[in-house]
């Protein structure tokens, strides 16, 4: 009922009465209005925009991932088989445009390369988790932008993860359990038993029961087909009981009866892919594409992506509080964080400055030391030099003295000689002179 509340003084230039949503009543229509075409309008809009769907295939090399994708979508996707010698797990992603009647689908298939091939498989799940997170992050970044174009954004978030289980017939491998546990809160996991023509029917039932119980015991949440809408509740309910699907993939067509069918031929018989008695391929196709594609996309967006977003934002320190103080607390948190960050920066700057000063001091001290050493060496050398010089001077002096003494003796000897020769033997003097000369 309309309720009039006088919620404003005459000074307010306007007053708003009756918030929408309160007091909703159903009104009978007196004729055909025409808004029953609304779902069609919505569908037409979506068709013109196109759909996108992203599948992640996780499984060991050689389990038939690419073949299964080819079989599911009835085309030949490109890509060569991977070798077993990959050093680490990598993800290979390809995007294709499929068109069926008037519906265009942008399909992205991501598959793991080298999963389970290493000797040490502890980190095998990490590249997969990082990839899924990276897609969420890209979407979150786009959503947080100021100027964004969400309605034309190419959504690359993984909508469904097909986990390929090797057909051992016993139980899940520990690598499988660990990987699925890490992935179950990030993506819709649909476990399937690959190459299931290697298992017999009785073994298959036991295998399925073992797998389901192991998953339950370890708390792994796999994707449950939704059972809340009556139109699909029944079929989804029965399908839930058949999980995990045992599938076979084949792109070869063989003539069986008078029809061409996809099948694998063995000497002992032919396995038909689309025969429900042979494998669960048809069930997988029904569930994945024909019945629940939209639900997979919605779960990815409203559950896994919201969880990622919430964790990411809380990590950054932002919280919601009661509505009336929300803007302020966000602001406070932001201010606090900012101050904290600036404080840290300042502290770092101080540290660096101190370290710089210290280093300079050390270097200075070193240099002073070296200088002192150099001075000492110089003094030492100088002293040495002076000593040598003195010695040399002494030697020179003594030499000079010798020379002087010799000269004196020489003049004295000459004097004597000249005195002697004057008396008589001047010839002998001459001869001696000559000899002397």
């Amino acid at each position, binding site marked *: 009922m309309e309720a009039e509340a006088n919620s404003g003084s005459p000074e307010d230039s*306007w007053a708003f009465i009756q918030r929408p949503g309160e007091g909703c009543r159903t009104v009978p229509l007196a004729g*055909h209005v025409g*808004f029953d075409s609304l779902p069609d309008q919505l569908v037409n809009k979506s068709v013109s925009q196109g759909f996108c769907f992203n599948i992640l295939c996780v499984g060991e090399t050689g389990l038939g991932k690419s073949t299964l994708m080819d079989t599911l979508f009835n085309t030949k996707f490109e890509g060569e088989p991977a070798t077993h010698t990959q050093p680490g797990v990598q993800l290979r992603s390809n995007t294709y*445009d499929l068109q069926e009647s008037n519906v265009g689908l942008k399909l992205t298939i991501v598959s793991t390369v080298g999963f389970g091939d290493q000797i040490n498989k502890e980190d095998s799940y990490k590249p997969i988790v990082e990839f899924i997170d990276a*897609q969420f992050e890209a979407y979150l970044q786009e959503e947080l932008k100021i100027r964004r174009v969400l309605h034309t954004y190419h959504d690359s978030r993984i909508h469904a993860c097909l986990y390929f289980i090797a057909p051992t017939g016993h139980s899940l491998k520990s690598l499988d359990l660990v990987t699925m546990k890490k992935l179950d809160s990030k993506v819709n996991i649909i476990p399937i038993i690959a190459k299931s023509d290697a298992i017999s029917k009785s073994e298959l039932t036991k295998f399925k029961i073992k797998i389901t119980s192991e998953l339950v015991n370890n708390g792994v949440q796999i994707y449950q087909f939704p059972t809340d809408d009556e139109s699909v509740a029944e079929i989804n309910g029965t399908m839930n009981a058949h999980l995990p699907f045992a599938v076979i993939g084949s792109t070869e067509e063989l003539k069986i009866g008078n029809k061409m069918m996809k099948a694998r031929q063995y000497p002992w018989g032919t396995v038909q892919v689309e025969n429900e008695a042979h494998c669960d391929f048809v069930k997988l196709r029904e569930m994945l594409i024909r019945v629940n594609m939209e639900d997979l996309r919605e779960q990815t967006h409203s559950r896994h992506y919201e969880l990622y977003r919430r964790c990411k934002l809380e990590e950054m320190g932002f919280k919601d509080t009661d509505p009336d103080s929300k803007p302020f607390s966000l602001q406070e948190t932001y201010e606090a964080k900012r101050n904290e960050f600036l404080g840290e920066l300042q502290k770092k700057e101080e540290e660096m400055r101190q370290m710089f000063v210290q280093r300079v001091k050390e270097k200075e001290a070193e240099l002073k030391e070296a200088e002192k050493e150099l001075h000492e060496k110089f003094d030492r050398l100088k002293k040495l030099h002076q000593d040598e010089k003195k010695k040399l001077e002494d030697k020179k002096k003594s030499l000079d003295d010798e020379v002087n003494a010799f000269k004196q003796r020489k003049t004295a000897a000459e004097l004597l000689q000249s005195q002697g020769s004057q008396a008589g033997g001047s010839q002998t003097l001459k001869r001696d002179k000559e000899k002397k000369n």
Partner: protein
Amino acid sequence: MDPLRQSPSPSSSRASSPRTLSCERLGYVGIEAVLDQLKIKAMKMGFEFNIMVVGQSGLGKSTMVNTLFKSKIWKSTMPGLRVPMPQTLQLHSVTHVIEENGVKLKLTVTDTPGFGDQINNDKCWDPILGYINEQYERYLQEEILITRQRHIPDTRVHCCIYFVPPTGHCLRPLDLEFLQRLCRAVNVVPVIARADSLTIEEREAFRHRIQDDLKTHSIEVYPQKSFDEDVNDKILNNKIRERIPFAVVGADREHMVNGRCVLGRKTKWGIIEVENMAHCEFPLLRDLLIRSHLQDLKDITHNVHYENYRIIRLKESHALPQGPGWVNLAPAPPPAPTGTRASPGPAKMCRWAEDNSDEDF
């Protein structure tokens, strides 16, 4: 299909860049079943539609709403009853849930009694703009919560029907002012009210004059030319644009004409049938609003008008630019009295101009 992005996948995953290829289909896969899935989901969730009617009193707004949705949404004011003239402009909103063939529609109609009724009608559009922005603000607050709801309740005004009085001359200054300001914030559909007082020739002349006025003042009413997506849309919308503004007559009484029971107005000189294309253009309005363009109205409100509002608000709050930052919204501008509201108006128009230039719709 929209153009595909050739951007490489995030580097941390060491995956090769996605190439887009068209594949030869060899058999039926069943992709088109997704359309049915969409329909089921939409019917389960129900639809929401919010409409606002603006115009002076006595132009038949309440009657028009009742005629559009063929139910007593509003108690229309009977002539002759002394209704106390509201001193201020008040917005009055009611919500109903109507169902047809399994499709549930939550319809909210907002009325604006008192618009243009005072002697001084300056800034009489401010409360209306304030209400529209308040709805955007509410949605924005919900959207930036950390823990947000699965389905945010949508109270944003999807369509505003503006009633032009049938003067027969041209748009009045009040109309021009109002239309200029509002067409930037919401989808506006102008209609000529009480068109039974104009003859067919007068109608056409009036319509052409209004169209010229709109073009002169660059007022873009719904369906906006700049949002036509492809050729088909253009053709369809051009046909509609030729007839805007529709000349409508509202009636919620039924009379007998030629043995049929029709909605109409009975006068001494004849019965004006509301659903008769020869008499008035009400069917065109109804088809535009409900049968063909309802989803489009909602989409344009969400993708264009709401985004523009968001950009302005985030810039105001000095939000961190793109990157792993979070938004702290400055406290929303309170529904302030006249003075402060003037500024966001022209500012929004400038921003609209700059958005328009670099974004292609």
